[in-house]
């Protein structure tokens, strides 16, 4: 296998971050089991998982970059592209859909300026993603903005919610 150099990448797993990951290692009998936790740490530190980070994690856990990429693309919450300063996930699955979730999603697109799902607003502030069931169906419509779980959002309430994120 030929390995080409990738773009310059400032390592994530140094110092305290590396120590935090290695502190998890005794929990599992394999290093592979650290993959999801490691990717979360990358995303926490950088906001997304770059090619360089994929290579770093692969080397750290004795995996191939292709393997890591296969795993990343299985899960919807890891970003393989940069996203806006605030990442908004809005649920539109049936239970929320019944209660107007698509109107909430449309309001989000309008008020963030994103225009389209999956794109980042011109000011770089928001990215809006439509997601499947967030498991808060009784509190329609739920949003996840960054790490915050916000319940009971209505289309009319969208501007007020967005105002909390600059």
């Amino acid at each position, binding site marked *: 296998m*030929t*390995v080409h150099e*990738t773009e310059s990448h400032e390592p994530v797993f140094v110092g305290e971050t590396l120590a935090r990951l290695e502190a998890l290692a005794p929990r599992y009998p394999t290093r592979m089991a650290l993959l999801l936790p490691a990717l979360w740490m990358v995303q926490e530190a950088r906001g997304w998982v770059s090619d360089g980070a994929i290579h770093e994690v692969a080397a750290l856990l004795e995996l191939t970059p*292709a393997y890591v990429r*296969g*795993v990343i693309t299985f899960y919807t919450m890891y970003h393989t592209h940069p996203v806006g300063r605030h990442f908004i996930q809005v649920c539109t699955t049936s239970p929320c859909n019944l209660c107007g979730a698509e109107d909430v999603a449309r309001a989000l697109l309008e008020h963030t300026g994103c225009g389209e799902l999956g794109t980042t607003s011109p000011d770089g502030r928001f990215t809006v993603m439509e997601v499947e069931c967030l498991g808060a169906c009784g509190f329609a419509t739920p949003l996840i903005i960054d790490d915050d779980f916000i319940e009971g959002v209505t289309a009319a309430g969208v501007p007020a919610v967005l105002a909390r994120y600059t």
Partner: protein
Amino acid sequence: MSTELLTVTIDGVPVQVAKGTPMIEAAKMAGIIVPHYCYHPSLPSPAVCRMCLVQVEKMPKLVPACVTPVADGQVIHVHSPEAIKAREGVLEFLLINHPLDCPICDQAGECELQDFVFQGGRANSRYTEPKRYNPVEDFGPDILYVANRCILCTRCVRFMENVAEQPVLNVSERGDRAFIGIDESQRLDHPWAGNVVDLCPVGSLISKDFLHKARAWDLDGTASVCTGCTQGCNITIDTRDDIVVRLRPRPNLEVNRHFICDTGRADYRWMNRGDRAEAPLIREGATLRATGWDAAVARLSALVRDVTGPVVLLSGGRASCEALGWTARLLGEKQLTAAMQVPLGSEEPIGSIPDLALRAERSANLEGARMLGLAGDWDAAVRAAGAAGLVVVLDVHLSDADAVTVAGAQLLVQLTTVADPRLTNAELILPITSVVESQGVLVNRDRRAQRVLPARPAPGMARAAWWVAAEAWAASAPGREAPATASQAFQALEAFGGLSHTDLGFSGRTVGSSPAGVAR
């Protein structure tokens, strides 16, 4: 696997199989192919394609035949209405995103999707929505990935992960967006990576080398053995209009399972050389004159009879046992020094399969030469050639330095596929068939004697080397009779215990005791 035998009935055919046998293999023994895609006998089974679902009496659901071991007394239906309907359903699902570009697909004619749809698919698709589209990707030196044709059987991913142990392929994304992925920084260039092309049941992973070269139905396949190294992987030589266009692995669980290395796979261009020696050339003064075989054999016989001083035989690694054995017999009454050229390369193991590697010794019949006592020290033999009474070069390409030494021999005979222009002082240049133009036996490093069969006709007047040698041997004394066939020629060689070609079959047979250091 235990030797305990179980009896099962498959589509009405009772068979006895060893405990632990998966239904799909049991069905094979009953002469029934259970259609399948993800299953491959040399790979772990994920049971994902769902093509091999069969009906088993007293079981509520259809079961995947690839991962379900048989139980004693089971009654299995591969062709019950329910199993047929399930298969038809899977085929329809597989086709909804498949481009049906068979007219421009290399796999057409040897495509398992085509075959099974033809056998058991719907006549018309009910799918009217747009198909998924993904671009073609360049995966490696010889491999393209045509994502649109992919049926996600994952054989390629499992080969790289479990066999080659270099997981550079993955399944990316989910659902019907999924495709086979590779990291951009890596290439599918493992020394055995080309096997993914053969493993791919459709035209999704294709060889650049073979791209648009031939249609499968125009090919003739010939059972043979790779001559790239001492491993002796079994291959099929595919020819189109007598031109070799592709080498493929031929399954032999004892030697190469279902695989060959990329070096062996690519090693076929020499088979199509156009500058072949086509007529026997015989020396007349300062020139070489074309002649017929009668004159050539007579001259060879006379040369050998009259030679004084030691004789040297320098052979190439592709020389068959018959060629070696009979040339040695012709020269055998003289003081003979013989050696086989052994080019060296790096050893490239496949990965997880023990005893399977591209071997460092790149000489197909080295063990055969050893068993015949014709594999002496090469350098010593070349040095001896300078002072020998007669030197015979047998199907070998000499290095420049060796050629200079050999050209200095008193008397030189070339038994060769291509006349060596550096050895034009030869007394005789006799055109012989290459290993892909004649029957013969090669012995691999584990002393397995394996047959090669002619895949293309001999050019011009070329004859098998054993025939030339045997005819000359027979002509050199009264009462001698040359063998009429390659099999007879082989059978006459004491080193191999009188086995005939038929005895060796198509998967070969171990001859003599294994050489030291090779465990079997």
